[in-house]
């Protein structure tokens, strides 16, 4: 079993590494690179909401924080993009940790609404703090990852590899945390029954805060990758539509598995972009339908098909 999973992940890794050579088309590379960024965001949401059961409706906010922090650091202070990624992730993790404290007292609906409100506050600040965020036009004209080849196609191929490697490593870290450590068991215990987890001697406060910090930190890292890749950060990244898309991806892939939401993100983003050829407006209609149908009829998402097979 473990060997089969090992072979499978090796095959995926080799396939992903060869993709820019096999499919050297700018459009394909753009879509796959962005899909990878979404996969990281969806997996980070799943760590907090799927594994630990703390529903965040504000992941667009953490994503935007990472994106804005990275872009602003590079634009205003000429911070190296490599360092900028860490800055974005650290700031998002810090805000996530701060959100975790009130979250200790809130459950279910209330937590979802507080995080939604937080994302909305971040969006409003992004839109109105002109000096730092550029207001409605956002931040643009900042440099991207240094040291990559200059030729257009080679640059895209190299950027793809860098981003996919960072995403894969991040998801692996989260997977290790959730599946191979005490923290992962504590996360699941909190999700299943928080009171019971407490009586079993699990320090639920500590693990909830940990889940908040790790999840929002990786969401911020995804935001930083997005900023350096797309080269434009505007307030709309913090909008509830972003969160909605991420939750749709996670539900599609299967909550509480990490790889499910990541896979769901890759496929749903592919569907979303693929439907552009049919008509730009139909892609979100499809996303809405996928969310509703999967929540009602396919509760374990794509991941459930593997388990039952």
């Amino acid at each position: 079993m473990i060997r089969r999973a090992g072979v499978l992940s090796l095959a995926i890794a080799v396939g992903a590494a060869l993709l820019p050579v096999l499919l050297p088309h700018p459009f394909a590379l753009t879509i796959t690179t962005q899909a990878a960024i979404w996969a990281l965001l969806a997996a980070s949401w799943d760590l907090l909401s799927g594994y630990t059961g703390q529903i965040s409706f504000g992941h667009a906010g953490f994503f935007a924080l990472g994106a804005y922090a990275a872009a602003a650091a590079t634009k205003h202070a000429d911070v190296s993009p490599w360092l900028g990624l860490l800055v974005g992730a650290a700031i998002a993790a810090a805000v996530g940790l701060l959100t975790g404290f009130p979250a200790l007292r809130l459950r279910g609906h209330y937590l979802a609404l507080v995080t939604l409100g937080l994302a909305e506050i971040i969006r409003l600040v992004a839109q109105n703090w002109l000096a730092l965020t550029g207001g409605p036009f956002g931040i643009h004209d900042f440099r991207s990852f240094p040291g990559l080849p200059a030729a257009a196609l080679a640059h895209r191929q190299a950027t793809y590899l860098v981003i996919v490697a960072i995403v894969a490593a991040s998801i692996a870290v989260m997977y290790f945390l959730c599946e191979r450590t005490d923290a992962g068991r504590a996360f699941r215990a909190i999700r299943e029954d928080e009171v019971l987890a407490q009586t079993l001697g699990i320090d639920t406060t500590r693990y909830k805060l940990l889940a908040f910090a790790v999840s929002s930190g990786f969401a911020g890292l995804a935001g930083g990758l997005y900023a350096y890749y797309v080269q434009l950060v505007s307030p709309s990244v913090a909008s509830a539509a972003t969160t909605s898309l991420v939750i749709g991806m996670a539900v599609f892939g299967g909550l509480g598995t990490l790889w499910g939401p990541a896979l769901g993100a890759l496929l749903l983003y592919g569907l979303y972009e693929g439907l552009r050829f049919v008509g730009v407006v139909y892609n979100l209609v499809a996303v809405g339908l996928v969310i509703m149908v999967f929540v009602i009829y396919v509760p374990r998402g794509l991941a459930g098909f593997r388990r039952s097979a």
Partner: protein
Amino acid sequence: MLESLLEFLIQGVVLGGLYALFAVGLSLIFGVLDVINVAHGEFFAIGGYLAFTAVVLLHLPGAMGIVGAAVGTFLLGLCVYPLLIAPLKRRLGGRPQGPLYLVLTLGLSTFLQSSLLAIAGGDYLRVPPQVSGVLDLGVTAVSSQRLLVLGVAALLLAALFVFLRFHPEGLAVRAVSQNPDAAQAMGINLPRVFALTLALGVALAGVGGALMAPLFNVYPAVGFPLTIKAFAITILGGMGNPAGALVASFVISIAESLSVMVMPSQWQNLIAFAVMIVMLLLRPRGLLGRAVSR
């Protein structure tokens, strides 16, 4: 100073009428179904589009736009419980719902909003006001359209509270909101009450959309920011407490319009969320909330 205070106060009260129409329905639905309707704002948008269809495309009088919006969103709302909520409820059985209804209505919101975009396009559509003219109050002038919003809101909400207090169906709604199991044991048809409550709640938003269409213009995403703000209002008023939502609507709207006197107006949308977060930390049950934990 005093004059501008009065002016902002009046504008706040008018805005409060809209918030109340929106938030009372949301709160009613939560109280009865235990479902937070993330798609509430889309029914507001649909109300606006129905008013546009009636008045601009079919050349009907403005009042027909309001009636059309009410009836249309009510009928659409009737479908939501049997088609979406009930199947999920059946699958869950007695297990905890977690965030699933939130995610479900989030999906509905995305679906409706993008369907509107597919059908009507993303343009800002103008709807002529149902009433024209301005009322001069001395310190400030208020357009008749805004007064109409306030008047209709007051009328509908009064009717709703009378319905809930005296009409047998309204009593059934309140009984279910207090104790669904006991209500069912007394012979109340739960699915019927759930479907009716949802339809009533979203129809209030639909009427709001028709009334605000001349002031806001109509576009697919017009309702979503209101949904988010209405969450803040319902939390302030106490979740599932329509009377609390009514009071909280005016508290927030007046605070927002008075805030313009002390800070730049683009920040006024922050107030509702700041109030929501402070309220959840200090008094999660809301202004008028009962001390129960769900």
